[in-house]
């Protein structure tokens, strides 16, 4: 018997009265299994509701259906392309000012105004009620579309705007004056370097605008003689010509730089000692080398110093309410590291000292040092004549009365060479201390080392020390006759110098005592007998050091 194989519309197998019961049972089981599988595969109402909720995801009621979204997009199937094409018309961010830049570019509080015009037919020229100095100072729209600056121009007074072409009648032209720049000089410290583009300020623009009335540079002279130190680069060495010396106290090492020491033979000194390469821009330095591992004791003090003449430093007005600050700068190198010391001192009415410290972090490496010297308003001041003005000292080791004070503070408590605890160069056998580029200048900022010609520097040194050639010769007719020549110094000296002779030849005569002045001397001999009498090829050393 065949089975009635009919099914429902969804292909569920149906029983049939003509079928065997067993067959229908199977068919019903299959139908129930199929129905169960279908039901299992479908969402429940709760699940469907949740899916819809998730889809809406909190969107506002006005935009929670596809139709509402479509209407919001203008029913534009090409909305993305439309928006992209509109964005392409906008200026790139790199070509416009940010708000911060605009705030910086335009003067706050300056005039801002909005001017709206309804154009007549083909109108292109519009008269502005608020002047706009330049195009970047205005925003121009035509029917709401921002116009690039190439689409309009301004007249010289900024009161007339002309569009590149006429616009139809009824077109809305809006001009927004953003706040005009150049409303007077900017406030101090508001014009920073980033605001000055390269080449933005030319000499031509400055000409006639700024009268260069500068009262000083860094509080000091505008030009020339900024450096109160003479022979700061150690070029001039008239006495030793580069030879090493083991100095006595007060002995000069190179011109204007002398040794001060309480114990002999603890260090030697020489221009370019050790033959190391000087700092860039320099050809010489003064070097001191320790000759032993000396332990400081008592009131020991070792230093290299220069005394600045009062005439050359009095303008700093130290010791008065008008005292100016100063700054000391130099290049230094040592085989030792640590905190080194020195001092600035004046001696007009009493000894006033400003000790200072500086650090050398790397051994045998040139280090540039600047030392600020606060205005010495309440010190004893400096002499204002040809006597001692200011002492500049670099300590090589001091203790007892020679060490003390607070770095950077003027004191009259003691004549300190360097602060306590600073490096003792003489304490290490073979230790080196090299220095050059020494500059003392008015102001609070160290400027580059002042370059002077060799001739200028030599002349400055000759005010204190110079060697002059002198000769006198004559045929005496008898003993006791006197012959003399006048010799002028190359440079007028600081004071009447001490005179000594270092070489030459004398025949049949006696060198008489000199009668020097600050400008020269009389070279005089007395004959011993009749005949050729002379004192020739004499090198006369004139010394008027401080």
């Amino acid at each position: 018997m065949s089975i009635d194989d009919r099914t429902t519309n969804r292909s569920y197998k149906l029983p049939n009265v003509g079928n065997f019961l067993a067959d229908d049972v199977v068919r019903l089981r299959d139908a129930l299994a199929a129905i169960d599988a279908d039901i299992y595969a479908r969402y429940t109402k709760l699940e469907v509701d949740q899916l819809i909720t998730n889809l809406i995801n909190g969107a506002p009621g006005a935009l929670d259906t596809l139709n509402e979204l479509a209407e919001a997009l203008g029913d534009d199937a090409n909305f993305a392309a439309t928006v992209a094409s509109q964005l392409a018309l906008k200026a790139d961010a790199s070509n416009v000012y940010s708000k911060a830049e605009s705030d910086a570019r335009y003067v706050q509080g300056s005039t801002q105004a909005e001017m709206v015009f309804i154009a007549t037919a083909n109108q292109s020229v519009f008269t502005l009620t608020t002047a706009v100095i330049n195009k970047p100072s205005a925003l121009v729209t035509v029917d709401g579309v921002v116009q690039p600056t190439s689409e309009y121009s301004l007249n010289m007074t900024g009161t007339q705007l002309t569009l590149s072409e006429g616009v139809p009648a009824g077109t809305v032209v809006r001009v927004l004056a953003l706040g005009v720049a150049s409303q007077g000089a900017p406030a101090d410290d508001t014009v920073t370097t980033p605001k000055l583009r390269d080449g933005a300020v030319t000499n031509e623009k400055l000409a006639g605008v700024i009268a260069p009335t500068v009262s000083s540079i860094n509080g000091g002279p505008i030009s020339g003689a900024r450096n109160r130190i003479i022979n700061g680069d150690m070029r001039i060495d008239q006495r030793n010509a580069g030879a090493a010396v083991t100095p006595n106290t007060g002995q000069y090492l190179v011109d204007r730089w002398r040794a001060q020491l309480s114990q002999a033979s603890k260090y030697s000194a020489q221009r370019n000692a050790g033959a190391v390469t000087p700092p860039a821009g320099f050809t010489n330095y003064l070097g001191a080398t320790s000759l032993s591992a000396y332990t400081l004791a008592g009131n020991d003090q070792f230093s290299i110093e220069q005394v600045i003449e009062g005439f050359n430093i009095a303008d700093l007005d130290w010791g008065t309410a008008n005292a100016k600050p100063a700054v000391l700068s130099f290049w230094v190198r040592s085989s030792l590291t640590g905190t080194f010391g020195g001092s600035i001192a004046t001696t007009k009415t009493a000894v006033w000292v400003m000790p200072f410290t500086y650090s050398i972090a790397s051994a045998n490496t040139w280090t540039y040092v600047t030392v600020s010297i606060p205005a010495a308003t309440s010190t004893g001041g400096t002499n204002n004549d040809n006597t001692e003005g200011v002492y500049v000292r670099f300590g090589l080791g001091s203790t007892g009365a020679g060490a003390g004070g607070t770095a950077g503070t003027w004191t009259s408590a003691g004549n300190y060479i360097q602060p306590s605890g600073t490096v003792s160069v003489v304490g290490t056998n073979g230790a080196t201390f090299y220095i050059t580029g020494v500059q003392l200048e008015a102001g609070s900022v160290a400027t580059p080392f002042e370059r002077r010609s060799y001739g200028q520097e030599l002349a400055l040194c000759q005010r204190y020390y110079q060697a002059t050639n002198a000769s006198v010769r004559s045929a005496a007719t008898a003993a006791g006759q006197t012959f003399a020549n006048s010799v002028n110094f190359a440079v007028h000296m600081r004071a009447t110098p001490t005179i000594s002779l270092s070489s030459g030849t004398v025949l049949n005569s006696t060198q008489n005592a000199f009668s020097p002045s600050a400008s020269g001397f009389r070279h005089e001999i007395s004959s011993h007998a009749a005949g050729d009498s002379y004192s020739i090829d004499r090198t006369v050393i004139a010394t008027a050091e401080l």
Partner: protein
Amino acid sequence: MTYQLTQGATILRIADRAYIPPDPANTDFQAYLAWLEEGNQPEPAPVPEPTPVLTTEQKLEAAGLTVAELKELFGL
């Protein structure tokens, strides 16, 4: 350090034969004054050698003349 007076205004520093002017701004002169204040005294100035009195013959010799030449010059 010792000093010696001279026939002029300067003071001779004997150690290095340096002539020191009496200028208060000269540091060597300042050192000399300090040396004096310590109670020291400079050596006196050297007495200049007296100018010798020349004989007639010595004067003629200095002039490069002999007695005979002088007589001949005056026709004696």
